[in-house]
């Protein structure tokens, strides 16, 4: 990289970072997107589900990175009963190894410069304002200055912390996950399945997201508190032995999901934070792809205005925080409360909810009717739960 002055440096080339880079570059900013891994799109640490309408804000679906189109949902209770919802055009399961790559190429086409194998290893500051980054590339250290820094470095974010933004996640707000991609069994390519229950995934859920007819992402997340006693890996092993004992495993991945609803202040003097680094996944579902992309777009809009004004102080960048809160963050505050309620559900409650829902006549079992039935018969938070899982502009399944 030449030592030119960059307007914006973005750390992390996931969906949030690439969208931020694309919109910054499209706004005429000299934009550099840095990815610490030596490749973009791998390893995939994600269930890969997105809602159709959420994706549509950014791009047309492309068969190169759409694995399945989802129009049905099954929710299993611990007793292995389920209720189903027919939801035409609800969402997609992506091939993120191709999708993330595609988003990075869009950033390049818009005029951004992308570099891989370059880690942001520190933040340069002068008089309490971010002025650049320290880099590490193949064992070599260097520095680059910029007018604005965007941290999009995922759950493992350190960039924001170096800049003085508190992002450490308490145990209670962090889900610990493992997922495999299975090959072999028959899957309904249009249906996602969720499994709830304290023996299956305490404080979280298990998922089966199909990628075509014979492949699926099968994973689960458990609360950090549950992970103290037993690991996600052990729970997933049980789940696979119960459901897919002979399936081939073409990919194994682990990860953590921040579930505190959003950083209160995802910005500072000369810095904005987007995506998982800003704790922007939905606190009930853990869905974070589209949220990160929305945040990247909003951060880019604020970046353009701030650099035009020549003022990148926290006061000006607060516009990004406000925009995020107005668009998504306020809902996440509600979902956060739903999640806290859900953690106290026992298996009998899950079974009872599912039993009641199975009594709803099939033709009436659209989401609205189901929810009304639940709402009349069950504690109110189930409404929020199911709404949180399967609806809304800013959520992915």
């Amino acid at each position, binding site marked *: 990289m030449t030592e030119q002055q960059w307007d914006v440096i973005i750390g992390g080339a996931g969906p949030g970072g690439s969208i931020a880079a694309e919109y910054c570059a499209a706004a005429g900013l000299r934009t550099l997107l840095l990815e610490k891994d030596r490749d973009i799109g791998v390893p995939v640490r994600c269930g890969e589900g997105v809602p159709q309408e959420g994706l549509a804000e950014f791009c047309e679906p492309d068969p190169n990175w759409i694995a399945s189109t989802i129009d049905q949902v099954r929710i299993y209770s611990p007793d292995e009963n389920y209720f189903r919802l027919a939801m035409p055009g609800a969402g997609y399961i992506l091939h993120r190894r191709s999708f993330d790559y595609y988003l990075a190429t869009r950033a390049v086409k818009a005029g951004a410069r992308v570099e891989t194998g370059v880690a942001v290893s520190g933040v340069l500051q002068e008089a309490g304002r971010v002025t650049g980054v320290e880099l590490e590339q193949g064992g070599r250290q260097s520095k680059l200055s910029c007018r604005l820094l965007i941290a999009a470095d995922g759950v493992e974010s350190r960039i924001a912390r170096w800049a003085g933004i508190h992002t450490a996640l308490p145990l209670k707000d962090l889900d610990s996950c493992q997922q495999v991609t299975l090959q072999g069994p028959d899957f309904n390519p249009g249906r996602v399945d969720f499994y709830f229950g304290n023996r299956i995934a305490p404080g979280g859920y298990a998922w089966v997201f199909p990628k075509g007819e014979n492949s699926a992402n099968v994973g689960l997340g458990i609360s950090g508190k549950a992970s103290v006693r037993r*690991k996600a890996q052990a729970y997933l092993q049980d789940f696979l032995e119960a459901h897919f004992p002979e399936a081939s495993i073409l990919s194994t991945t682990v990860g953590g999901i921040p579930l505190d609803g959003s950083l209160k202040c995802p910005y500072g003097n000369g810095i904005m934070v987007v995506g998982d680094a800003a704790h922007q996944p939905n606190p009930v579902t853990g869905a974070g792809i589209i949220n990160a992309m929305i945040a990247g777009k909003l951060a880019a809009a604020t970046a353009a205005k701030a650099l035009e004004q020549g003022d990148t102080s926290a006061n000006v960048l607060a516009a990004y925080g406000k925009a995020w809160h107005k668009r998504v963050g306020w809902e996440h505050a509600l979902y956060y409360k739903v999640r806290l309620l859900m953690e106290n559900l026992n298996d009998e409650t899950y079974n009872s909810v599912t039993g009641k829902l199975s009594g709803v006549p099939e033709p009436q079992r659209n989401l609205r009717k189901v929810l009304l039935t639940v709402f009349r018969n069950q504690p109110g938070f189930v409404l929020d739960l199911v709404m949180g899982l399967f609806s809304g502009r800013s959520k992915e399944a």
Partner: protein
Amino acid sequence: MIRIDPATCDYCGTCVGACPENCIEMGSHYIAIDYSICTECGICVYVCPLEAAQEEAREQG
């Protein structure tokens, strides 16, 4: 003393995000605890989806 086994670790960064002291250094292929900062609070051991982060006592036991 907490140790992260580089052969078991998948470099997912969950522990890095949880560490209250910001003392875990991670690249694509390496991970290291800054023991001059680590308070041995154990949250990295708790959140790890695998069993890569271990308290040494547990490992010996």
